């Protein structure tokens, strides 16, 4: 039994909108219905439910139970994964582990958040004591520290960050589910001239909080075969690290847990970065993509700008990047936002990319980033490598 004995047999995604007038459970119901239609599973065959973190769901400490009840799912395994932006990809790994352990056979992984319409977060955190008294608004400031530190250590060509922003925006133009407000072309000059939010983090570096849902069904490959589901995506490598270098007082914020998570994922998959056919990194801020390129070994630490300069990230480029626009150009569905990167990777491997279908579907790499700590990088890092084969 292993990760790769399991398969993603279907995916679903709602449109991403600002201030949804549809309830988070209505979005969840849309995902459930779409997945039943696409896989042929009956509702009663789903015996596991794993939810991502959700700012809307944060008001209920019985979130997974309450959602199982709303969707009338009778399950043998029920949980919420609470590692923020890592939770959708983390949910896939946990679904595989639960299936391998014999706890259940067919898991609905549901990523639903309507943070812009209804946020219920009340964080018990260091922030009230240590950062709110400084007027710190959260993620943009944290990425401001990271960016200035990166520039100090390695130099930072902001036009290269702009190149990534433009590539992702071009992809959102081809994505009907992307937030309408963001589906306008941008240039590197637009990026460089966009207003500062938390220097040197600009508006076009940043995600816009939106509402939406996505989901997948995970089952054993044996069960998928029994059901005649031959269009499958298999996770072949996974790594996860929370609180990287927790036992050190000062850490280099340009180094992240993706280094160790990536090494583990690549080793399991038997692949190296140059084998990766399309790259779907979690993108809350553009510089996070650069850092992940370095940590995953696409290039050396500190060499990200040179790597970006020499590559094309278009659909038909050397390394297609977040081919649906990523969260920065499609909108961030709150803490379910990691589902956007994941679903796009699965869509590409299913060959259902339409106008944005990549040619090389041998594999895809998807990541997550979760949580902003005090004067560090980020709390959780996950890396998953997917293939369309068994």
């Amino acid at each position, binding site marked *: 039994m292993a990760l790769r004995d399991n398969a993603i047999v279907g995916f679903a995604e709602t449109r991403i909108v600002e201030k949804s007038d549809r309830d988070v459970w209505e979005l969840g119901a849309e995902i459930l219905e779409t997945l039943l239609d696409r896989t042929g599973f009956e509702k009663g065959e789903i015996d596991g439910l794993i939810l991502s973190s959700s700012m809307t769901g944060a008001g209920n400490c019985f979130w997974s139970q309450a959602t199982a009840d709303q969707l009338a799912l009778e399950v043998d395994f029920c949980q919420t994964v609470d590692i923020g932006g890592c939770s959708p990809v983390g949910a896939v790994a946990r679904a595989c582990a639960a299936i391998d352990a014999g706890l259940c056979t067919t898991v609905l992984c549901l990523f639903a958040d309507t943070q812009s319409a209804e946020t219920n977060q009340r964080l018990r955190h260091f922030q009230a004591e240590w950062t709110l008294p400084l*007027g710190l608004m959260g993620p943009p400031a944290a990425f401001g520290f990271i960016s200035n530190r990166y520039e100090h250590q390695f130099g930072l060509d902001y036009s290269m960050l702009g190149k990534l922003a433009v590539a992702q925006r071009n992809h959102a133009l081809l994505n009907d589910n992307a937030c309408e407000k963001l589906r306008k072309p941008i240039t590197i000059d637009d990026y460089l001239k966009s207003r500062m939010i938390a220097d040197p983090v600009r508006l076009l570096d940043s995600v816009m909080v939106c509402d939406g849902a996505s989901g997948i069904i995970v089952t054993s490959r044996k069960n998928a075969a029994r059901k005649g589901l031959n269009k499958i995506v298999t996770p072949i490598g996974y790594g996860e690290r929370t609180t990287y270098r927790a036992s050190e007082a000062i850490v280099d914020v340009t180094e992240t847990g993706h280094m160790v998570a990536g090494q583990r994922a690549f080793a399991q998959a038997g692949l190296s970065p140059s084998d990766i056919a399309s790259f779907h990194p979690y993108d809350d801020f553009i510089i996070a993509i650069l850092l992940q390129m370095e940590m995953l070994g696409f290039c050396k630490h500190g060499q990200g700008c040179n790597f970006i300069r020499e590559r094309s990230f278009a659909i038909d480029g050397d390394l297609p990047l977040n081919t649906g626009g990523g969260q920065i150009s499609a909108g961030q569905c709150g803490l379910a936002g990691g589902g956007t990167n994941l679903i796009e990777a699965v869509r590409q491997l299913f060959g259902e990319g339409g106008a944005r279908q990549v040619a090389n579907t041998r594999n895809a790499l998807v990541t997550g980033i979760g949580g902003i700590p005090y004067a560090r990088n980020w709390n959780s890092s996950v890396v998953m490598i997917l293939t369309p084969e068994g």
Partner: protein
Amino acid sequence: MTMINDTLDVAREAPKSRSFSKPFWDATREKKLLLQYDPVVGKFQFFPRATSIYTGRRNLEWRESAGVGAIHSFTIARRARPPFQGKEPFFIAVITLDEGVNVMGNMVDCALDEMKIGLRVKPYWSPLPDGTHLLMFTPQR
């Protein structure tokens, strides 16, 4: 040149301390900076925690720090929520104290062109309504 505000006139509330961070806040009444120190490994840590980040044990001591160090990184907040709204732009800096910990703080009397990574700073204590003080920093000139 961009004017950078010092946030001294922001009407802040005093943060609520936790059982294990209370000594830190109590000491700020006398404008003293206390850091947690793990005598087993001989290292400091910040922010205050209920456990040593080094060993997972609770044998921590409080030691007074001069609060002197150098800018590790910084950002300029251009947007803020109340009571900071309207006080933008202002600095939020990460300072590496000489004891080997990173502490975050606002900057007082620091011009935009003076701010840089490596700039030496010293503490500036801003009064809070309950008699405690908030740790800020100012360039050491």
